[in-house]
């Protein structure tokens, strides 16, 4: 947001003044046309597939299966969405959706909070071993997910944690390196005076964290919560591995096509289910886009 304001502050004419004998009006206009054409072509590349999914979800099976293809449904089949929610079995659609939400909360809430704590620890303390530990933490971002998941599966199976929700809580309590990194970058930018003032007012470290740092960490809390929600909501692999089929999350349930009693695939219903499944992810993104724009780049710039 701020960077955009800054970019627009310079009067628009200032650049062309210093340009050598500027291109004529026509070529400038041609340039604009080129620019917008390219932008719109890419817009189509990114958005058409989304539209095609949504449109197809509104079709009848006959319209879906006809050739030459039918672009728009003759009558928009709102019923598909009703059926998508009511006709899923083992687990039912609401059940799977609730499980997705529950796991997202079970993992996401502790994850964001512990990451904030750890980020504060790294950002606002001087202690022996700090830099070494911070390097260790960053190095963990490089470790392939599966190299951890496979043995974790074996260990958790030994501990009887497979087919339970405990793994999500444990991962949450252990914080995430990437979030810790974001929090650390954010908290490192706070003025020292703020901390000193809090200390003079009688705050200990814990109180300083909760009363001074957390209330001023809105954007980064929002970004981490959104990333965490999206990660959990869209996660397909972990629930497949760690839970029974009956405990499928919505992401897992939506990976297979719905079938009718004869075993035929019901694609349009499946797609309606998929569209409903995407809505929370897109809402979360819409709520947090401005914070993402603000925060995400710093992860690369100050690395």
């Amino acid at each position, binding site marked *: 947001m701020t*960077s*955009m304001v800054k*970019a627009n*502050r310079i009067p628009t004419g200032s*650049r062309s003044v*210093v*340009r050598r004998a500027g291109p004529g009006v026509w070529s400038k206009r041609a340039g604009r046309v080129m*620019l917008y054409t390219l*932008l719109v072509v890419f817009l189509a*590349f*990114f958005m058409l597939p989304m539209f095609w*999914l949504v449109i197809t979800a509104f079709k009848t099976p006959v319209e879906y*299966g*006809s*050739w*030459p293809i039918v672009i728009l449904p003759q009558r928009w089949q709102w019923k598909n969405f009703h059926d998508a929610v009511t006709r899923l079995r083992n687990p039912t659609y609401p059940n799977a959706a609730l499980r997705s939400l529950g796991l997202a909360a079970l993992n996401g809430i502790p994850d964001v909070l*512990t990451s904030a704590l*750890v980020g504060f620890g790294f950002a606002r*303390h001087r*202690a022996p071993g*700090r830099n070494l530990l911070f390097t*260790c*933490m960053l190095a963990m*971002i*490089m*470790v*392939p997910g*599966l*190299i*951890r998941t*496979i*043995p*974790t599966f*074996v260990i958790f199976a030994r501990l009887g944690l497979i087919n339970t929700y405990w793994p999500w809580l*444990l991962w949450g*309590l*252990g*914080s995430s390196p990437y979030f*810790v990194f974001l929090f650390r970058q954010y908290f490192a930018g706070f003025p020292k005076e703020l901390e000193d003032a809090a200390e003079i007012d009688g705050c200990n*470290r814990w109180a300083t964290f909760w009363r001074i740092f957390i209330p001023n960490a809105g954007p980064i809390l929002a970004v981490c919560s959104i990333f965490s929600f*999206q990660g959990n*909501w*869209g996660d*397909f*692999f972990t629930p497949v591995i760690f839970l029974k089929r009956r405990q499928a999350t919505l992401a897992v349930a*939506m*990976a297979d*096509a719905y079938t009718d009693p004869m075993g035929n695939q019901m694609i349009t219903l499946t*797609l309606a289910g998929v569209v409903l*499944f995407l809505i929370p*992810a897109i809402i*979360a993104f819409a709520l947090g*886009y401005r914070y*993402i*724009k603000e925060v*995400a*780049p710093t*992860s*690369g710039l100050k*690395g």
Partner: protein
Amino acid sequence: MTAVAQASLAQGRQRKRARNSRAKRETLSFYLFISPWIFGFVFLEVIPLLVGLASSLTNFSGLFDPKTLKWVGAANYVRAFQDPDAVWGLQRTGVYTAFTVPMGLLLAFFLAVLLSQKVRARGFFGVCYYIPGVVPIVGSSWIWRLLMDKNFGLVNAAVSAIWPGRAINWLSSYPMQVLWVLSLWAGIGGSVVIFLAALQSVPRELQEAALIDGAGSFQEFRYVTAPLVTPVIFYQFVTGIIGSLQTAIAPILLAGVKVGGIPPRGSYTYMVHVIRQNFSLSRFGYAAALVWLLFVLILALTLVVFRTQRYWVFYEFEQEGGKAK
């Protein structure tokens, strides 16, 4: 005099002690604050890694049966090099990474440059480019299965308009190409937003100065703006490589097979092979060896990429011990 000296000495000691105890308290507080991460690091990272390393040296198949569980030394690692499917998978992963990472960065950077011009509705374009990135993989694989379907797909509809009667079976004949398109479609938007923010944070004064010194706008971009965003490109490059080398879920879902199943040959990536060894064939020991090999490869590649930094990445502030640029 001695009394004064003693007094000041005592005072100094006291102050030192106070400073010491303050430092101690700060250290204690530090370790308390990071204790969640230490818990996670030890129990959810290091121990699993070591268990994985240990099991990669055994014939572990998921059963803790002392009669069958055997130490096999490096046999699993040797086997990996002789396993044609593992080699094939690695080659496919290489093909995937070598295309999507540079191509994704190039397109994202290009789009960010376009959007950093005076563009109306910049925010709108940015949001629309980003949206595919928030679609979970289960959704995006459905979308591309739909578009690339042999009989009812939109892409084949376009193909048959140009070339009547032609129906290409994209998903089974060109699975790698579909995978490329999917990953570009889903991955570019996030990078565009990051690049755009980086481009907009380049100080205007520098750009103006270059123009006043007689640089053309292309030269200004080449010698001022572009170098200043190389750290961001570098970061995206490294994370892109690390992510791409682990690709497994997209090929599985695009093919519509179960986890542990076999997608078409063309998109049979290394991690697909690993998952199959582990979860369908219960070769835990062997799968652990395969992932460790990939880890070593990622580590080596990352180090190489880090070493190339000095040739093309520009840091505004001197890095310690670095030469002036």
